[in-house]
C-alpha cells in the first residue's frame, strides 16, 4: 500500500532538527565520558540513533489508524508486560524496570508512553460529545492510572509522571467543563497529600525535599543539583569548550551523559549554546504542532499533540532540574541523553508524527 507514500513527503525539517539534536547529544556524550568506563557510549548512542531512524521510517509507513485500532490491545499487552516486569524484570540502578536478554535491556515503561498516546488519541476521537464529561475523566483517568501505578511500583516515579501530560493535553484539546477544573483543583492537592503520606518512598520524599532546599543534603540529590548549577554557571556566556568543562571532565557532575547531559552541555557550550539548543527543541516542538494542525483528522491531531506534550514535559522537567528549578526525577532529556530505550521510544513517536503527516498525501 506504500505506492502513494514517498520518502519525499517525510517531514524533512523535523528530521533535520531531530538529527541535529541527536548529533549534539552524541558529541556531548563523547565529551562527558572521555576516559571513563562509559567511553564507548557515544558510538553506541550513534548506533541507537541509526536504529531509531529505521524504526521511524517503518512506523511512518504504517497507517496510524491501524495502530489506533489496536490501541486497546496494545494497552492490555503493556499492562500485562508491566506486571511481568515487576516479577521477572532486571533490577538496575535501583529499580526493577528493565526487561531483556543478555546485554540488551529495554525500559518497558518508555515504550508504554507511545501506547498511552495511542490510547488517549483513540479515546478522545471516539468521544460523542464536544467536551469531556465526568465519566470520561474517570474512565480514561483510570486507564492511565493502572500503568502509572505499576511504574511507580518499579519504582520509577519520574517516568510514571510523564504519562500525565499526555492525558492532560488530550483533555485540554477535547474540551473540559470549567467546573471540572475546580474539582481537579480540590482533588489534586488532596491526592498530592495522600500520595506524600502513603505513596512515596523515602528517597522520593528526599528528592522532593532537596528540590525545595538543595543546601540541606549536599551529598545526595541536593549535591547533584548544586554540582549541576555550578557546572551551568561556570559555562558562562560562551562555554568552556568541548572536553574543557572541569565539572564534567573531573567527575563532579553526576551522570553527565544521561540525566545531567544538558548540564554538561551548558558548561561546555555556555549560554549561547543553551539558547541554540533550546531553540532547536522549540523548533522541534513547533514542527510537531504544525503536523498536528495539518493533521487529516482528529485522531492524528491527538497523536501529534500527545507526542508534543510528552516532549515538552520531558524538556521542562529535565532541563529545569539542571538549573535547579525542578526536582531531581531522573527522567532523560529526549534525543540527547544516552540510552537506547530513550532514543528508540522517541523515534517511534516521531514515526507516528510522520505517519500522520504522510496520511495527508494519501488521496
Amino acid at each position: 500500500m506504500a505506492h502513494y507514500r514517498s520518502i519525499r513527503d517525510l517531514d524533512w525539517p523535523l528530521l533535520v532538527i531531530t538529527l541535529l539534536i541527536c548529533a549534539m547529544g552524541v558529541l556531548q556524550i563523547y565529551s562527558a565520558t572521555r576516559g571513563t568506563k562509559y567511553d564507548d557510549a557515544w558510538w553506541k548512542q550513534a548506533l541507537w540513533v541509526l536504529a531509531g531512524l529505521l524504526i521511524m521510517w517503518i512506523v511512518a509507513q504504517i497507517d496510524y489508524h491501524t495502530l489506533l485500532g489496536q490501541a486497546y490491545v496494545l494497552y492490555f499487552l503493556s499492562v500485562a508486560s508491566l506486571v511481568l516486569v515487576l516479577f521477572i524484570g532486571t533490577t538496575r540502578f535501583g529499580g526493577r524496570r528493565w526487561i531483556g536478554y543478555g546485554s540488551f535491556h529495554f525500559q518497558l515503561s518508555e515504550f508504554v508512553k507511545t501506547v498511552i498516546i495511542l490510547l488517549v488519541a483513540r479515546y478522545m476521537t471516539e468521544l460523542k460529545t464536544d467536551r469531556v464529561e465526568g465519566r470520561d475523566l474517570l474512565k480514561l483517568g483510570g486507564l492511565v492510572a493502572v500503568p502509572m501505578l505499576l511504574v511507580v511500583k518499579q519504582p520509577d516515579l519520574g517516568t510514571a509522571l510523564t504519562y500525565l501530560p499526555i492525558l492532560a493535553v488530550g483533555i485540554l484539546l477535547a474540551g473540559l467543563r470549567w467546573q471540572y477544573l475546580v474539582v481537579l483543583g480540590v482533588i489534586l492537592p488532596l491526592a498530592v497529600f495522600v500520595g506524600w503520606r502513603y505513596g512515596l518512598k523515602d528517597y522520593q520524599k528526599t528528592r522532593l525535599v532537596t528540590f525545595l532546599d538543595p543546601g540541606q543534603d549536599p551529598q545526595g540529590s541536593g549535591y547533584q543539583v548544586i554540582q549541576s548549577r555550578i557546572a551551568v554557571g561556570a559555562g558562562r556566556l560562551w562555554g568552556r569548550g568541548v572536553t574543557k568543562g572541569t565539572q564534567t571532565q573531573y567527575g563532579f557532575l553526576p551522570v553527565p551523559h544521561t540525566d545531567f547531559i544538558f548540564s554538561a552541555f551548558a558548561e561546555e557550550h555556555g549560554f549561547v549554546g543553551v539558547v541554540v539548543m533550546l531553540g532547536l527543541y522549540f523548533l522541534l516542538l513547533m514542527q510537531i504542532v504544525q503536523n498536528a494542525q495539518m493533521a487529516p483528522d482528529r485522531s492524528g491531531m491527538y497523536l501529534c499533540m500527545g507526542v508534543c506534550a510528552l516532549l515538552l514535559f520531558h524538556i521542562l522537567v529535565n532541563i529545569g532540574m539542571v538549573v535547579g528549578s525542578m526536582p531531581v526525577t531522573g527522567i532523560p532529556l529526549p534525543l540527547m541523553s544516552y540510552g537506547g530505550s530513550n532514543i528508540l521510544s522517541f523515534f517511534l513517536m516521531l514515526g507516528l508524527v510522520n505517519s500522520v503527516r504522510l496520511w495527508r498525501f494519501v488521496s
Partner: protein
Amino acid sequence: MSFPLPEHRAEHLPSKPLLRDDTKFASAKIAFFQYLAVGIFLFLIAGFWTLQVRDPEIYTEAADRNRIKFVPLLAPRGKILDRDGRVIVDNRSSYSLMLAREHLRPEHVRPIALGLGLDADQLEARVKRFQSRPKYENIFIKNELTRGEVSFVEAHRDLDTFPELELIRAQRRLYPQNGLAAHVIGYVGEISESELNLPEFIKYDQGAVIGKAGLEREYNDQLMGVDGQIQVVVDNHGTVRNSLGIKEAVPGKNLQLTLDLDLQVVAELGMEDKTGAVVALDPRNGEVLAMVSTPAYDPNKFAGRIRSADWNELRNNPDNPLLHRAIQAQLAPGSTFKPFVALAGLESGAIDETFKVHCAGGASFYGRYFKCHVKAGHGSVDLHKGITQSCDVFFYNVAIRAGIDNIAKYAEMAGFGHKTGIDLPNEMQGVVPSSEWKMRNFRQKWWAGETVSVGIGQGPVTVTPIQLAYAIGGLAMGGVWYQPHLVKDPAKAGKPRLGQIDPANAQKIVYGMYGVVNEYGTGTRARLPGISVCGKTGSAQRVSNDAVKAGLVPKMKDNAWFVAFAPCEAPEIVVSVLWEGGEHGPNAAPIARDVLKAYFDKKARQTREGFVAEVKRSEPRFGLLPPPAAAPPPDQSPAAEADPD
C-alpha cells in the same frame, strides 16, 4: 475542502465521521499550547540567564573550589652539621595528614579518628576549637603516618567518602640515637596553641613544626625554610589530574656548629651513667667544642607530637633529663672557685706571692671553726701550694683579706653571676654574692663570716658548667674572655671582653693550676704525657654540714667538679666537668683528661696529615709562657692522692 474518507478504512474507525476540517475545532487550544511552550522555554532560558550571564562568578569560583586544591609543600629544615661538616641532625621523609576544613563534615570526624587510631573526642574538640578560624586553615591531625595509615587515607580520600583527608609529604627530623648532644640540639615539635601567641613564633601558623628547645629553637628562623605550595587540579576522587602552578619550598639553611663530634662522643662516653655536664671551649675564640648534659633524652620522641606518656616520664624523672645542666645547673663551684678568690686577693693587693699561711687542718674565724679538707693540715702554704693542694685554710684567709666585694668584683669580671650569652635559650646566670647582693635580696647586711665559705666556693655562690669553662678559659688567656657560641660563624667570636687585671697575676694562678695536674696536686689524674695540662678540682657540698647534723636533710654525696685547660702556655681548649654526686673533684678529672686527649690526638693526627685548621684565634695576653719548672714525678706526692682536694 472536505471530502469523504476512503471506504476501506471505515471499519477501523469510530462511528463518528471524521472530517479533515474537524481538526480546526482545537486550533485555539493548540495556540494555547504553543504559548505554554513559549512560556516554558522562556522560563528555562531565564534559569540559564541567571546562572550563566547574570552572576556566573559565583559558580566559576565554586567550580574552581571543586577542582583546585592547594597542597602545601613543606620546606625541609636545615641540617645541623658539626665543625667538620659531619651531619648531626638529618631529615627523612614521612607523611602527615591534614583535614581540609573546606570539605570537612562534622560527622566524618569520628570515623576518621577510628580509622587512624586517634582519640575521637580529642579530635572533635580540636575541630570545634577551629570553628572560628578561616576555612582555609587546615588541621594537622597526624604526623609520621605508618604504611597502613597512608593506605587508609589513599583508600578513603575520594569525594564520596572523606574528601577532607589531605596527605602531605613532610621532612621529619632525624636526631642522633642515644641522645647524643640532645640538649644542645633540642628538638622540634608542632607549634602549640600558646606558642602561637609568642612574639618569637608570631609569623608561623598552626600546624607549623618549630624548634622547641636548644639550637632548634635558637636558630629556628634560619633552620626553618619557607613552605611552598602546589596548585593542583583534582577530580571527584581527589586524584590529582594535573598541576597548575607551583611555588617551590625554600629549604631551611644548614647550621654548622663549632661542636666537634669526636670530642662530643668522648665527653658523652665519659658521662655515661653519671649525672652532670661537660663543656669544652676554645678559649681563643669562644667556640664550644663539646657540650654534654646527662641524663639525656631521645629527641626523636619529640619529632612531631610527643606521646603524653613519654612526656610525663621525662617530666617526673627525678634526675630531670630535660634540664640542660651545662647551662642551667646552678651549683656551688667548690674549690674550682679558688682561682678567682686568688685573683681577687692578688688584684686587690690583699695578698702577694710571698703571702703565707700555716694550715693545721682548720682554723677559727669570727668565733667559728672551719675545717680544711686535709685533717693533718698542709703546714706552711703559699699561693702556689694553696692552689695545687687546694688548701682551704689558705683561701679562708685570702677571702677574709680580700673581702666579699672584691671577690664578687673579680668573679663577675670572670663571667660568674651573668649569662655567658651562649646561643642557647634559657641559660641560667648563677649567683655571685656580695654585700650589695645580700642587701638587695635579703635586706640584710653581709656577715663577714659568710665570706669564709665563699673563699672555698661554698655558701651562696653558684655557677653553671659553661660559666666555669668560660671563666677559667678567659683567666688562662690572661684576662681575655670570648663569648661562648655553638654556631660556626666568624662574626660570632666577635671582640673579646678584656678584664681589668694584670696578666702577670693570671700567670701566677695558671702556674698553680699547672701544679694541680703536674706536681703533687689534686688533679694528677688529668695528666697527659707531652701536654702541659692545667686544672683545678672541686668537691662541692650540696647540703650544709649543719643541716645534715640537725637531721633536716639526708647526707648527699658531694658534687665533683674539674676544670682543665691545655696547653698551659697557650691554651687551646678548656674543659669543665660536673659530676653530680661524684664525691671528689679528682674523680671528675679523668673525664676532662679524655676530652683533652681526644683533642690533642686529633690535632696531632691532622698535623701529620697536613690538615690545616682555619681557626680564628688569638694568643694569650702574657705571650708564650716558659715551660714551668720541671715537675716532680706524680708518685712523689702521695698525700695529694690519698685525700685529694
